[in-house]
């Protein structure tokens, strides 16, 4: 176990190192001056230039430049953005929580929809209910999220004028950004009607959350249903029937745990897909998250921001999956890496 953990951490370290090398070399591959691309300072004064040259060690060879870059990264100096002229880490620390927040709610919703529906569908295998859930889920995981978001907007915001279509909270509420997590920030804010603000946040969350939760939810349905079906074919279930237990008894006593536990990691892996969908949907709902920010940076050819955003997002996803790998081992040491391949 310890051995496995160390191997995984090794891999994590190595991958992050590679990502940092890639992000460093991007500064040279992008058009323009590499120092400008690294620091984000577009027209530095001579004094600034000298200090930048000093901190990025432009006079040394590539290796030492890379070491200097790595040191700056670890110190939290990621350079500044071309467009906002703000330190990248500041931008990232306000946009990232917004995305994480949205994705977490959506993921929770997806599990709340997916797991029960999957279980029911599995238990009522080949019945009308199973059939309708299956076709709904086929629709759900084939629909492009951005189109679904547009349809939801069209219906709930434009036709019915029920729900807001942009941002996280109405501008009536002056909520200063502290953590970036809006609900926490509301509790920290002064002079606002907190109940009204929370309700407003809730209304803003509905559409974006729904549009990304539906796809992941349907994938979870399929995973859970498959697993329930597998479990029901096992001998111990048949044995339980043999002892005269009813369907419900059999399932709740033996089936549930055994069908959910093995697919738990598989379900959690869906989070990264959901995160990507969240990043796209952010653009549609003007959600101030990292997806919106990164795509704006791509439009604006904001090289430091592309570099920083890419490094941040990919590092986080990698860290997430590798910690998940370790977790899988903790939960169920018999499972190998293969778990990820199946769906």
């Amino acid at each position, binding site marked *: 176990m310890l051995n496995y953990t160390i191997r995984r951490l090794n891999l994590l370290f190595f991958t992050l190192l590679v990502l940092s090398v890639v992000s460093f070399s991007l500064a040279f591959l992008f058009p323009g001056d590499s120092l400008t691309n690294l620091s984000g300072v577009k027209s530095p004064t001579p004094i600034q230039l000298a200090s930048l040259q000093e901190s990025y060690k432009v006079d040394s060879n590539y290796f030492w430049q890379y070491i200097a870059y790595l040191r700056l990264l670890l110190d939290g100096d990621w350079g500044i953005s071309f467009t*906002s002229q703000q330190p990248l880490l500041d931008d990232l620390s306000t946009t990232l929580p917004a995305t994480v927040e949205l994705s977490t709610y959506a993921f929770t919703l997806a599990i709340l*929809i997916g797991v*029960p*529906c999957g279980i029911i569908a599995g238990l009522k295998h080949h019945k009308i209910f199973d059939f309708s*859930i299956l076709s*709904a889920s086929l629709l*759900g995981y084939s629909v492009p999220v951005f189109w679904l978001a547009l349809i939801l*907007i069209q219906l*709930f*915001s*434009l036709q019915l*004028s*029920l*729900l*807001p*279509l*942009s*941002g996280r909270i*109405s*501008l*009536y*509420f*002056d909520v200063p950004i502290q953590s970036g997590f809006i609900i926490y920030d509301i509790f920290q804010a002064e002079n606002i*009607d907190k109940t*009204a603000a929370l*309700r*407003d946040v809730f*209304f803003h969350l*509905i559409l974006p959350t*729904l549009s990304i939760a*539906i796809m992941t*939810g*349907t994938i979870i349905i399929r995973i859970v249903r498959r697993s329930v079906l597998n479990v029901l074919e096992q001998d111990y279930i048949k044995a339980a029937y043999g002892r005269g237990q009813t369907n419900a008894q059999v399932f709740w006593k033996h089936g549930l745990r055994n069908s959910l536990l093995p697919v738990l990691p598989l379900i959690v892996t869906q989070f990264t897909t959901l995160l990507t969908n969240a990043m796209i949907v952010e653009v549609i709902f*003007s959600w*101030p998250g990292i997806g919106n920010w990164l795509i704006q940076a791509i439009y604006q050819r904001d090289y430091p921001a592309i570099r920083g955003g890419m490094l941040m997002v990919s590092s986080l996803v990698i860290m997430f999956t590798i910690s998940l790998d370790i977790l899988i081992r903790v939960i169920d040491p018999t499972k190998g890496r293969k778990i990820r391949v199946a769906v």
Partner: protein
Amino acid sequence: MNQRALFLLSFILLSSCSDIKHNELSKKGVIYCSEGDPATFNPQLDTSGTTADATSHQLYSRLIEFDPNTSKIAPGLASSWLVSRDGLTYTFQLRRNVAFHSTSYFTPTRSFNADDVIFSINRWRLDNHPYNKVSGGNYPYFVSLGLNEVVEDVSRINGYRVEIKLTRPDSSFLANLATDFSVILSEEYATQLLAQGTPSLIDTKPVGTGPYKFVDYRKDSFIRYQKHENYWQLGDIPEQLIYDITTTDSLRLAKLISGECDATSYISNSEIGAIEQRPNLVLNERPGLNIGFWAFNTQKEPFNDAKVRRALALAIDKNTLIEAIYLGSADRAHGLLPETSWAFEALQNDTNFNPALARQLLDEAGIPPGFSMDIWAMPVQRAYNPNATKMAEIIQSYLQDIQIDANIVTREWSTFREELKNGEHDSVLIGWSADNGDPDNFYRPLLSCQAIKSGTNRARWCSRRYDDLIQEALLISDIELRKTYYHLANAVLAEEMPLVPIAHAYRYQAHSDRLHGLKINPFGGIRFGDVEKR
């Protein structure tokens, strides 16, 4: 199951929707969806409509105001004024007990007085003024009209009386004082900032006497204003005014429809139908004080020849352009001035569609068939020209009929303006929105010799005769007499045809029916000073 969840959710929403739409909070605030970031919070420094919309009538007051209903000048911070017989001396009586904003960064100790007027004017007028060079030191409106040379002196007679001396009579002077740009800043705040060594804060953390005071601004995101409790013109205005900066055109309309904005402007013609369908939205329409035109670079061969310019003007059918580009929501332009101006003259220098005559004139001028020229089309959408590229394409096909090959040139907006200013174009499709109701505001910036340098004379055309006429017109205060000078100037333009006037576009603004008192300000920036929300 998903559908069921959706259905359930929408049911919950339906039952609580009345709450979100009419809660107490939204009654206390107005959200305006604006189209971009203001360049500064001091409209003296910038002539763009976005800056004026965001700041001028919300944060500041002027000595004199335009009444948006009657289009006449009305008292502002000056309760009355006197003009001397020779038209050289203006004396203003100032209002008492006008309070400046009290904000987190400045607490005024005195109310508005003569010092503030002197400071505000001297800042753009005097090169050696300590604030002249702050924040870039460009005062485009005042400089393009030569106002810094027109004003000879501004002096204090007593605390509430100011005298302004001019070098020459200028009958448009009062109108200029009423524009979006002639705002009154706080001299006390400026002095305090100078002592702190941070003078540029005056333009980023503004203090004025307008109905709203500055609270917060985040680039690309919002501007937050709060009601100024001691505003000198009392009105029942909402507690908050928020600018939701939304650069995507369609998103502004979407937010208006979904109720996230109370008002928006810069509505494109194709969106009008969608607004009219909604019973809870109000669409305001008004003939705008603007002109869209096609200007020739008169400093380039062969466009220095009036005959060529006339021929090109005859080659296009303006009515088709108005139908196709403005979708009919514009008046055909006969000259520089729209019909609403008092100096308007019907058929001043209009041209009719006559390609045969056009070809004939070109032959006379020695332009062979197959001649090739550039049409520059501005890349942005403006009221006076909602789609310059498409207009260029139509003109291109008209020119093909008279055997002229036209290339359409377009650049990124700031580069475009820069290269235009350098005179790199053959011809350009662009336009002008007036800042005040005075005809001088069309004639001078568009075609005077001085305006070549300041960059608003796109034809780069300079005529002594024309300049003299519009100069003379300013010296006269009698409106009827002034009119004849402008008509003479029209005659010069008809002869020379430095630009082809195309259309005066209508202006649109839409808002929710819960707002009352929001009108289109024909002379510039939007005004929230007397807007109520119910």
